[in-house]
């Protein structure tokens, strides 16, 4: 099992969700985050005060998937979240040791 974590542009969230749903992915966790990569921030000016805002708002999604689905999930996220512009985000994949569904006690692949 793997955790696929993707940092994407906020307005791409619905497209990514639709793409994952069409693959049969049933669960997804979303967090509003801020950060920076290659994309530069912007300047905000309030009367005389100028602030360089270097942390931009992004959405982080986390999805737990069986190991054999990882490449399809990555493909779906890339396909849905890509604009070709700088700041499209990144995908990180991590090993997942164990999973439990709280309501039933089902474990691992049955819990996903």
């Amino acid at each position, binding site marked *: 099992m793997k955790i696929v974590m993707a940092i994407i542009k906020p307005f791409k969230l619905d497209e990514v969700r639709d793409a994952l749903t069409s693959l049969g992915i049933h669960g997804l966790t979303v967090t509003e985050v801020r950060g920076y990569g290659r994309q530069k921030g912007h300047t*905000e*000016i*309030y*009367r*005389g*005060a100028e*602030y360089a*805002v270097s942390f931009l708002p992004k959405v982080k999604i986390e999805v737990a998937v069986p190991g054999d689905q990882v490449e399809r999930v990555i493909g779906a996220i890339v396909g849905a979240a890509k604009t070709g512009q700088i700041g499209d985000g990144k995908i990180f994949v991590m090993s997942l040791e164990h999973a439990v569904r709280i309501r039933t006690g089902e474990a691992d692949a049955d819990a996903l």
Partner: protein
Amino acid sequence: MTFAHPVRAGLLSAAVGLAAIAGFADMALAQATAAAPAVADKGDTAWMLTSTLLVLLMIVPGLALFYGGLVRSKNMLSVLTQVLAVACLSMLMWVAIGYSLAFTEGSPFIGGFAKSFLAGVAKDTVNSGGTIPEYVFFAFQMTFASITPALALGAFAERTKFSATLLFALLWGILVYYPIAHMVWQSDGYLMKLGALDFAGGTVVHINAGIAGLVGALIVGKRVGFGKDLMAPHSLTLTFTGGALLWIGWFGFNAGSALAANDVAALALVNTLLATAAAALSWMFVEWAAKGKASLLGTVSGVIAGLVAITPAAGLVGPIGGIVLGLVGGAVSFFFCTTVKNAFGYDDTADVFGVHGVAGIVGSIGTGVFVSASLGGVGVENYDMATQVWNQIVAVIIAIVWCGVISAIIFKVIDLTIGLRPATDAEREGLDITDHGERAYNM
């Protein structure tokens, strides 16, 4: 206030004219008529009741939201509470001694205690030389005395203890506002006798608040993290809402200062629209050219700068003169809020000096120019532009020096007694929690 005497003079000349036509026998009758107790005019009274509440609208919620939106969310309630409580305190001070010290005969610099706690003022008393119940005149002027210290608070917001702001309002009203209001608006006042013009409070309210704010910002000191931390306004939506309410309420402030529902009020209303529109666009386009973008905060700031600049001139200059005052006021205020403030490095949280002080000075001096009948103003008897402008400058300088010196003493005294600033940790946490025990947004 400015028109109290022309009105009285008009009544007198009408009485004299009547006597000349009717002959000696009827002259006694005319004098008897003139001596009859003045009766309030219903139309004037209705407009002044409305104006009084419009100025209250400027304070709460107008000014409170305008400033509240400009601070960080952790200090939102502290600004709202300070503005509300200082306004309420100023009202009770006004009935106790303020009205009497400002609007009774006394020395050229301060009145007496004859009308303390409204002594001698009854339901049927009419304001001196005017046509409205003295209760209404008292209440209208009370809203002015309430908004002025509340305006100053914005300059040292986010870093001043609540108790210190209340003590400031108490001392500053007595030592600064009442004397300057007396000097400018009372018939025996020093600046009134000098011939300085201030239709609705350019010196009394705006220069006064701007200078007190600047002195406060300097003595209280910069906010922790100023120049390093992000101190962006937490809600320009609320600042816009408050700014719009200020504009609406300002018609009570300016057109109400005619103290009657008449042609002067109409002129003040037109000026309060046109000068404001001109200043908003002036700030917006200058900022667009200088910084690359036209901002909402800049445009709203231009609205306020225009309202301030036209305040001393509202019933005295023509509409085109008013537009010129607005254009100049907006651009000069922008320059002070950006270039000058950054050059000197003082921390004026809501730009009280940059907007109210600076546009107030532009308007007060500009009134001396555009009151000229040749420039579309209403004119002044024996008008000479150089003399009038000089009188305006003298009034501005006296207001700056009086307010600056006494405000500095007041802030120093507060600092040495109860203290001006909260502990650094408390300031970091935010005054909403540490001063008031509550949070603006529980989401």
